């Protein structure tokens, strides 16, 4: 489906940080992404909602080069990144808290956070950011010496986001930060996401919890079986009848 005029209007006033053009991805013979196009304005929170298996996580993994884009173009701040390997994408200033959290189970919380700052050599600033992350998630500070594998699900989620922040990214990709968490914790996590965004980090959020995601986002994309079927401002999507019926359970 083509972009709505609103999307174009947004792009006109804000420079885009990430741009996907007609991206196709395959898992072996399975055509997982069938021509994804979207644009994320700098400084925004954008969210990608959709059902299980629609290709949301695949989109994030493709942006990061974990899955190779077979066709199409991905640009970060104008530079093409679709031919880069994950470790090269990380250098560009993108970081990800991926699906399933992917905590290093046999490393402590502190070490996990240190690994997030692997590419940085400015020790003083890293220490400062560590304090900032501990400020965002005080629970992590109590668990600093504990092994990642022994943390609870919510703590692991905080750690995954914290670790991604330690890279001091310009763009943060979050894959289902609310998955498997208690409602209270979900709220807390989303508050924190807003706070992170206020610090100037652009956020691309993938969520099944559409209501929560749309309520904090500027832009929203709706995905179905490997295609983006709807693009609009988050506020408009919240009012969209189709979206209400399919994803908001109203």
């Amino acid at each position, binding site marked *: 489906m083509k972009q709505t005029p609103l999307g174009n209007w947004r792009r006109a006033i804000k420079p885009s940080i990430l741009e996907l053009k007609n991206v196709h991805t395959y898992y072996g*013979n399975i*055509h997982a992404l069938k021509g994804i196009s979207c644009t994320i304005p700098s400084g925004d929170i954008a969210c990608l909602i959709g059902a299980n298996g629609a290709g949301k996580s695949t989109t994030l993994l493709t942006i990061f080069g974990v899955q190779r884009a077979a066709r199409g173009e991905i640009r970060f701040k104008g530079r093409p990144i679709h031919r880069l390997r994950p470790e090269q994408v990380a250098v560009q200033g993108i970081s990800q808290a991926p699906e399933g959290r992917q905590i290093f189970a046999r490393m402590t919380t502190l070490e996990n956070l240190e690994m997030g700052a692997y590419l940085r050599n400015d020790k003083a600033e890293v220490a400062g950011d560590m304090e900032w992350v501990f400020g965002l998630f005080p629970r992590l500070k109590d668990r600093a010496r504990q092994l990642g594998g022994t943390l609870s699900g919510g703590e692991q989620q905080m750690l995954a986001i914290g670790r991604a922040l330690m890279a001091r990214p310009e763009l943060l990709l979050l894959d289902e930060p609310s998955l498997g968490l208690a409602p209270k914790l979900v709220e807390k996590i989303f508050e924190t996401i807003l706070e992170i965004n206020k610090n100037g980090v652009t956020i691309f959020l993938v969520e099944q919890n559409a209501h929560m995601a749309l309520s904090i986002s500027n832009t929203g994309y709706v995905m*179905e*079986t*490997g295609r983006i079927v709807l693009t609009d401002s988050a506020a408009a999507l919240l009012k969209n009848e189709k979206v209400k019926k399919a994803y908001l359970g109203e």
Partner: protein
Amino acid sequence: MKQGSEMGNGEFKKFIIYSLFLGVLILPMVGFPGTHFEAKRAFIVWGVFVGVLALGMLNQVVRQSSIYQKTLGGPQSFNRRVTKQFQKIPVRHWTLILLAAVAVYPLLANNYMVDVGITCLIYIVLGLGLNIVVGLAGLLDLGYIAFYAVGAYTYSLLNLHFGMSFWLCLPIGILLGAILGCVIGYPTLRMRGDYLAIVTMGFGEIIRLVLNNWDSLTKGPNGLLGMAKPSIMYPAFSNSGLEWATYSLKSLHALYYFILLIAVLTVIGVRRLDQSRIGRAWVAIREDEVAAELSGVPTTWLKLLAYAMGAAFASVAGAFFAAKLSYTNPNFFIFMESCIVLCIVVLGGAGSIPGVILAGVLLIAVPEVFRELQDYRMFAFGLAMAVMMVLRPEGLIPATRRKLGLSDIETDTIGELEESYQAVDSRT
């Protein structure tokens, strides 16, 4: 075994560069038997190294070159046309021609060459037996030579102590081999490939160490001596009428034809196994054990059967080997022997009977004929095995069944299928 990797040009170049680097690295190590540099020795070793690498490169370069793609590689290629021409002549004819050549061979060759032929055939039987375990069922066995030892020692001991004949010992040896195969197979059933490799290697060594240390029974490293050659009985007319006369298979020619018979029977047996339900089930286990199990293939039982069948063939070869030499000792059954047999299977193309035969001839006969090369045999074949896994994992003569795999179906077709499935999905 799935396709190793599709190597791009850049990766291939890197591979060659690193291989040459490895060659340079081994140069000082191989050149210093003492404190002085022995150029001749070093450069012969290095020559073999570069030779093997060059063959691997040649294979890759030829297959990637545009001329090859146009003439031999493509769908309407020369290769396929030639293959089709060959296929017009039934396999049976080819087999007959080959059999005739092998049967006439000892009449034209001298004793030494017949002896080489016998060794070669023994290894082909071993290779075919291991082919069941590695090639068909996909279970790695690095202690295969232990079963060969079991066959040899079963015959030797029974013959020396009880005077039992070869024919009586053969089924006992087969049974013992199969039982041992199950004993070794059973604890390893749950293990993954690399653990399996180490454990079978350990088992192989245990058998050898037991043979080596159990002096009172096996005479330890001195070995056993003086077993009778196999003999056959045939009806003969003598003065007292019809009688059974014995003919001892003492001459090299007789032994040659005997092992040839065993080899032919092995080929027939392995072929029939391969094409049977059991063979298909083995291949299913090799390709995807979980899927096979879920489809109702009794994987535990079939894996044990693979070990037992493989062990049985090795046991036959071992009994023949001991009978032929009238001598056996534990040093015939070192780990390197297992490696040679495995090399035969892998280089030939796991699961492929003609491949195993060709590789058997290549690995055993060729170095025997060119004696100077013999020392370099395993050096070259070890490297060849590694290079082959990287560049041509399907072996010299790939098993035909693999060609019928999914990879040959056009990917587009699957893509369309997939889309139509999804269309159905989205409608529901």
